[in-house]
């Protein structure tokens, strides 16, 4: 079962690298923001998988919860800032 979670985690890391293409080569700043949001969502699952693999879920679950909150607030603040300044 640990091997299965390890394989899923490695596949998720490959997907994060694929999303990094959109972050670096995005035509404007909004595409980069969408790529960052997608990367944050995948990182949340990767953190939980690390907790399951290392058998310390009770520590990693709190980190994952804080990461979800920070990802949401960061995307919201970035959207508000871009809407206010109008430099899209």
């Amino acid at each position, binding site marked *: 079962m640990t091997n299965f979670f390890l394989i899923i985690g490695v596949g998720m890391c490959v997907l994060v690298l694929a999303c990094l293409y959109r972050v670096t080569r995005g035509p*404007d700043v909004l595409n980069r923001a969408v790529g960052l949001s997608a990367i944050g969502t995948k990182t949340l699952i990767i953190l939980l998988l690390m907790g399951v693999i290392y058998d310390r879920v009770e520590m990693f679950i709190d980190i994952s*919860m804080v990461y979800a909150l920070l990802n949401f607030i960061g995307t919201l603040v970035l959207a508000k800032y871009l809407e206010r300044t109008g*430099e*899209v």
Partner: protein
Amino acid sequence: MLIKDVASILFMLAGFFFFTTATLGLLRLPDFYARLHATGKGDTLAVLLSLIGLAIYNGFSLISIKIVFIAVFMFLAQPTATHAISRAAYRGGVPPWVNEPEGNTVEQGGEK
């Protein structure tokens, strides 16, 4: 192998499939709104399926309750973030992608 592990594996595989679909849409679709549509809905469903799989694997404990809390929060937060960033793009004047110039269809209609 327990039936709990089988259910967990099925949910995790479904979540990974939707993660892959959302990433392909983010990379391949032609427009900002289309990419947002792919990643906004696909990632939400994938997170929900993956968290359900992990909660089934951990059994009924405080960890599972926290995982369900994260799932509920993501189900509220992800569409909100998608809506906010889409509204920023729309008010900033990003033009939507159109498939075909309109002169072509008008010309075909005129020939008939």
